[in-house]
């Protein structure tokens, strides 16, 4: 029915429009995904005389007996459990305040979004010098008599990962604020007015109107940030630490994949962990789509 309604009904040239773009995407995504799965079941030939051999799940079994891989996985999960909730909390507070359009809110908004356009390598290098043992942060902390807080932020294996999380939050916060603010500005203002007339204070508005209204976008943001924590943190770790150090305290999956594929030439480990990464991200997306479907039924 809808097809018939289209003013361009009967034109069959759509293939000309979709093919060029699809070719690029098929090459970059479809081919790569199939090939990486295939490679993960293979022992790649290391010399000319050898041939690739099918080894089944061996690569995966070996992978789970590797301590660095387990460490990397743990670190990604730690980030996933800590960073998104903090981001959501801060974004809700900031966007709710900005929504009140207090004086200068546009300037605040521009500033909050600014880190989002800065490159992670740049941000990472700057923070490396801020976090240095004798860097600016510790100098300031010492000068206001907070010596006990003057830690070796990136050099201490127990806190290096958390220091990186601080930088990630610094960088990612703006995106959440903008998303939530956009959603808020599309809510019917009368809902707020009505509640205010009924005597609801700022916190009550936040608790009973703002947050429920933001539910869908909060879920979206959490999923996006969860995926980011699993598969887009390489840049931070690579720039801010010496190869996932100290020790393996800041190893993460992407770093483990890169190291094994491009430094140690252990393709089996690299491709198997890449497949695991892909499966976990896809699972998250799938979960989110299911959640959304259920929500649609609830609201429609």
């Amino acid at each position: 029915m809808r097809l018939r309604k289209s003013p361009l009904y009967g034109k069959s040239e759509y293939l000309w429009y979709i093919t060029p773009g699809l070719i690029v995407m098929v090459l970059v995504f479809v081919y790569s995904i199939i090939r990486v799965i295939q490679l993960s079941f293979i022992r790649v030939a290391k010399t000319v005389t050898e041939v690739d051999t099918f080894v089944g799940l061996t690569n995966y079994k070996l992978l789970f007996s590797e301590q660095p891989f387990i460490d990397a996985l743990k670190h990604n999960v730690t980030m996933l459990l800590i960073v998104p909730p903090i981001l959501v909390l801060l974004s809700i507070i900031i966007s709710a305040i900005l929504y009140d359009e207090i004086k200068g809110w546009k300037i605040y908004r521009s500033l909050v979004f600014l880190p989002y356009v800065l490159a992670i390598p740049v941000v990472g290098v700057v923070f490396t010098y801020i976090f240095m043992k004798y860097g600016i942060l510790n100098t300031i902390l010492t000068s206001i008599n907070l010596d006990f807080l003057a830690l070796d932020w990136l050099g201490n294996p127990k806190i290096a990962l958390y220091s990186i999380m601080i930088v990630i939050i610094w960088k990612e916060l703006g995106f959440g604020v903008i998303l939530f603010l956009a959603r808020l500005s599309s809510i019917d203002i009368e809902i707020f007015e009505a509640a205010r007339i009924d005597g609801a204070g700022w916190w009550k508005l936040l608790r009973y109107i703002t947050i429920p209204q933001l539910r869908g976008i909060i879920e979206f943001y959490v999923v996006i940030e969860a995926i980011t924590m699993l598969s887009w943190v390489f840049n931070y770790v690579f720039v801010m630490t010496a190869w996932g150090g100290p020790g393996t305290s800041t190893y993460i999956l992407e770093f483990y994949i890169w190291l094994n594929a491009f430094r140690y030439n252990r393709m089996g480990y690299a491709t198997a962990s890449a497949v695991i990464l892909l499966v976990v991200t896809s699972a998250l997306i799938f979960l989110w789509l299911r959640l959304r479907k259920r929500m649609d039924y609830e609201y429609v």
Partner: protein
Amino acid sequence: MYKKKGITYIIDKIRNLLGRGLKHFILIMICISILFPIYFMVITAFKTHDHYLNKIWSPAWPPVFSGFTKAFKGQFITWITNSIIITSGSVLLATFLASLLAFALAKLPFKGKEGLLGSIVSLMVVPPAVIIIPIFVLWSKIGLVNNRFGAIIVYTGMILPFSVYLLTNFFKTVPDEIIESAVIDGCTTFQIFRIIVLRLSIPALFTNVIVNTIWVWNELFIAMILLQSNKLKTLMVGLAVFKTHYNVNIPVIMAGLLISILPMVVLYLSGQNVLIKGLITGYKKG
């Protein structure tokens, strides 16, 4: 009666004032934490190394430019040139391919459209670490490693899903009536695409270009794997090396970083409103 009203009025007023004060306080604290690293980078870039060591947190006056001249003595210009070529190549190619695709998805009738759009959108979340190994293996076989074109293709692929999504959402808002009357006037499909849909979607195209430019310009992981030779390094890869190279002279590093973010900050400040609006329409249905 009158008195009581007066008191509640004053209490309300005070509460209001306190509330507003608290809000400003929270925002100011957040903005200080956001600006602090930027402040540190800017003041350090205009210092000598000695000044950095002695007075780490106050700006140097008069500002010193030796950091910048030293930064430019390296391969900075080469890196910037490479970044410009790679970024503009992939962003233009992707925007072109995406607008063709989005036009078909938004306005041309064919079966399986929704499914196709859904699959394309889901590609947005595929991690670069997953695709880079097969791409690298294939690219080394056909000579596309250490080749600008090879990198441009990968970047184009990486930014296509978002571009298609954003542009499709926007193209859908072009009214069918305009297209209908154009069909009656005898326009070909391509003319409709070029003259009507593209012209009406300039803000969306602009947003798409800005978002993707920022993404590609700032990308490190793919660039450092596909473009390893010194002549082809992009700015981000260069900066990662730069740090170890000038480790003893922090103002030089900060000057380099400052130069490298300048184009994106200018782009952001000039296109801020369009960018934010575009991002919102892009994600609204997400």
